């Protein structure tokens, strides 16, 4: 069977499955819409959380990032998993005991203030939209590459699918669809990883394969270090980020993970407090299967890429002999080549092949058949120790998708990867859309604007909000704001600087009051946003960083400022009432959680 046919089959088959589940698990009440009725088994919830959490960024981009930056990428690996430890110990069980639907619900009730609730609503919506725009774009790219449609058409197909199960099924539909999506995405990631590892090292597990020895007698990592240095890059196992920045960035990712509203809300769906803890454990196991495979995939991918492009003698391969994947991705605009030394060979080394980094394609093809560009680097001088000037641009995002092709794996593996990438992007998009619609219908309409609406009306608002949210997300997918990649830092920074501290203080400090919480959230929010906006959008340069902390890591500073200002203000203002203190004591004791309260 041809690759195209297999791809249609895999993607079509998985869609049929998701839609079937959505129809089977239709939500009839707000309880089912928001928290799936509160009766999800911890293992199922763990899988759903894992699918919810592992987005297009984890599936498609992370291995690529690590493949290109080596040790510095560890911040993502530790940050995006270590946050679950915080989630399990500091948030999940208590929020489950509290028994409300959403993060703004907790903030509003615990701090007995609609101002606090509205700030939490705004944080939730900003964080979720930032995230969802990237997912829709990811879906569009995968569709355009494998279904040979326009990226925009790809986004529209994605919108239609998400619409179907998020609007109909609500949390209940999403939970069980996400279980199916987890299975698809984890198979799609690990199967090629096993193949790659076995092919390169003879070890099936990529976890141990990365430490194995190659035919040359040298270990994979030592080979990578040697190749990287020869080509003028940093050694793969060495870092170039400063220690301070690594620490702050990792903390921001961890606390940000623990503070992401669409992850937190998953812990409201289990029956008991005990299950909230167990469920975090399962979620992390399911996530760790993918995350511990990533370093292997990244390492093997890089060895393969360098060997294929530069050839066995490391001097370059002639363009005419480059394998099909190279030209396919060149056609998608994610690979570019300019023959600086005019020898007809493709050569890969450190440094930019193109002015400004990315190739700027123009119409027409060169004499070898390569796509023409208008921006070759003016003076392609070899960098550091590199033996030749770099002639290739490789987009980091293609690593996972292109890996099976680079390694010549069977066509069904490639089709499976496509289905997995779509599953990863869609499951996260659906979870985020649900959080947005809940924040609007429940926290804004029901709790703030009009408390008299019925359950049925609230459900209608939730579905309406979901539809509007899908349209906005689709719009961003089709007209991506150039800054999608940058704003992800904003999403984590905001979650770390505002949501995470306010919940932790709400549980662990009986003294924390409205004034303290509101001040803390505002201080964290404003300082983090200002820093990120200044450096990402207003041209601040790296030598102006405060203590050398990059904007990605600044959420940690925002979090510290949040804690400090909150406690300072709380100590000068009256303590919360007796009644609120009772509630806090009650959250701390597991017994008597009951169902998530409807009102």
């Amino acid at each position, binding site marked *: 069977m041809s690759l195209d046919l297999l791809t249609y089959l895999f993607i079509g088959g998985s869609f049929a499955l998701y839609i079937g589940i959505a129809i089977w698990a239709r939500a009839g009440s707000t309880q089912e819409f928001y928290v799936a009725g509160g009766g999800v088994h911890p293992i199922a919830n763990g899988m759903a959380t894992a699918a919810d959490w592992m987005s297009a960024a984890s599936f498609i981009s992370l291995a690529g990032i*690590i493949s290109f930056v080596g*040790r510095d*990428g*560890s911040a993502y*690996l*530790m940050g995006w*998993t*270590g946050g*679950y*430890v915080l989630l*399990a*110990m*500091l948030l999940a*069980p208590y929020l489950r005991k509290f028994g409300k639907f959403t993060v703004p619900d907790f903030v509003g009730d615990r701090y007995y203030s609609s101002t606090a609730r509205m700030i939490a609503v705004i944080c939730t919506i900003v964080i979720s939209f930032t995230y969802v725009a990237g997912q829709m774009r990811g879906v569009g790219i995968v569709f355009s590459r494998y279904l040979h449609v326009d990226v925009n058409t790809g986004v529209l197909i994605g919108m239609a699918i998400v619409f179907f199960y998020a609007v109909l099924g609500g949390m209940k539909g999403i939970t069980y669809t996400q279980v199916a999506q987890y299975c698809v995405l984890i198979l799609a990631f690990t199967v090629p990883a096993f193949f790659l590892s076995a092919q390169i090292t003879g070890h099936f597990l990529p*976890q*141990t394969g*990365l*430490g*194995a*020895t190659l035919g040359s007698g040298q*270990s*994979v*990592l030592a080979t990578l270090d040697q190749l990287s240095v020869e080509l003028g890059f940093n050694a793969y*196992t060495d*870092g170039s980020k400063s*220690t301070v920045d*690594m*620490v702050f960035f*990792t903390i921001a990712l961890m606390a940000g993970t623990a503070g992401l509203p669409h992850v937190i809300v998953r812990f409201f769906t289990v029956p*008991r*407090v*005990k299950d909230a*803890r*167990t469920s*975090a*454990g399962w979620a*992390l*196991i399911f996530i*760790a299967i993918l*995350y*511990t495979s990533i*370093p292997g995939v990244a390492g093997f991918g890089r060895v393969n890429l360098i060997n294929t492009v530069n050839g066995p003698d490391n001097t370059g391969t002639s363009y005419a002999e480059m394998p099909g994947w190279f030209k396919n991705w060149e056609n998608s605009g994610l690979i570019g080549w300019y023959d600086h030394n005019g020898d007809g060979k493709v050569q890969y080394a450190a440094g930019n092949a193109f002015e400004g980094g990315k190739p700027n394609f123009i119409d027409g093809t060169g004499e070898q058949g390569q796509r023409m560009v208008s921006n070759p680097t003016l003076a392609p001088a070899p960098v550091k120790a590199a033996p030749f000037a770099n002639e290739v641009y490789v987009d980091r995002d293609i690593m996972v998708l292109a890996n099976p092709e680079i390694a010549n794996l069977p066509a069904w593996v490639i089709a499976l990867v496509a289905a997995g990438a779509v599953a990863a992007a869609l499951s996260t998009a659906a979870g985020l859309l649900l959080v947005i619609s809940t924040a609007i219908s429940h926290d804004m309409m029901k709790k703030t604007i009009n408390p008299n609406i019925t359950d049925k009306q609230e459900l209608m608002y939730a579905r309406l909000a979901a539809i509007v949210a899908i349209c906005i997300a689709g719009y961003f997918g089709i007209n991506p704001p150039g800054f999608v990649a940058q704003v992800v830092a904003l999403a984590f920074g905001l979650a770390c600087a505002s949501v995470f501290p306010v919940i932790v203080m709400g549980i662990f400090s009986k003294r924390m009051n409205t004034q303290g919480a509101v001040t803390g959230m505002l201080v964290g929010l404003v300082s983090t946003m200002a820093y990120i906006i200044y450096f990402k959008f207003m041209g601040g340069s790296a030598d102006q960083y405060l203590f050398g902390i990059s904007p990605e890591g600044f959420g940690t500073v925002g979090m510290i400022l949040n804690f400090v200002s909150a406690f300072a203000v709380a100590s000068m203002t009256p303590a919360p009432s007796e009644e609120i203190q009772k509630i806090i*004591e*009650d959250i*701390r*004791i*597991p*017994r*008597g*959680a009951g169902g998530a309260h409807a009102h």
Partner: protein
Amino acid sequence: MSLSPEKAKAYWRENLGIISVYLVIWFVASYGFGILLVDQLDAIQFFGFPLGFWFAQQGSIFIFVILIWAYVYSMNKLDEKYDVHE
């Protein structure tokens, strides 16, 4: 809530104790071995990996998984000890 205030306090204190111990391990495994001491540990080879690099990219994740399950186990026992389990 059938728990007396003293017992509730004692339960909470033990809970905080458990969390603190696990968070210290969490910190040492990730920030300690994976970032602060990574260069020193890289001098040691561990199944083909420089040890610091292994902690940063894989080891810390394994430890996180173990930590959450150890926490689940400790808390379930604590809940039963104070008879607040469900």
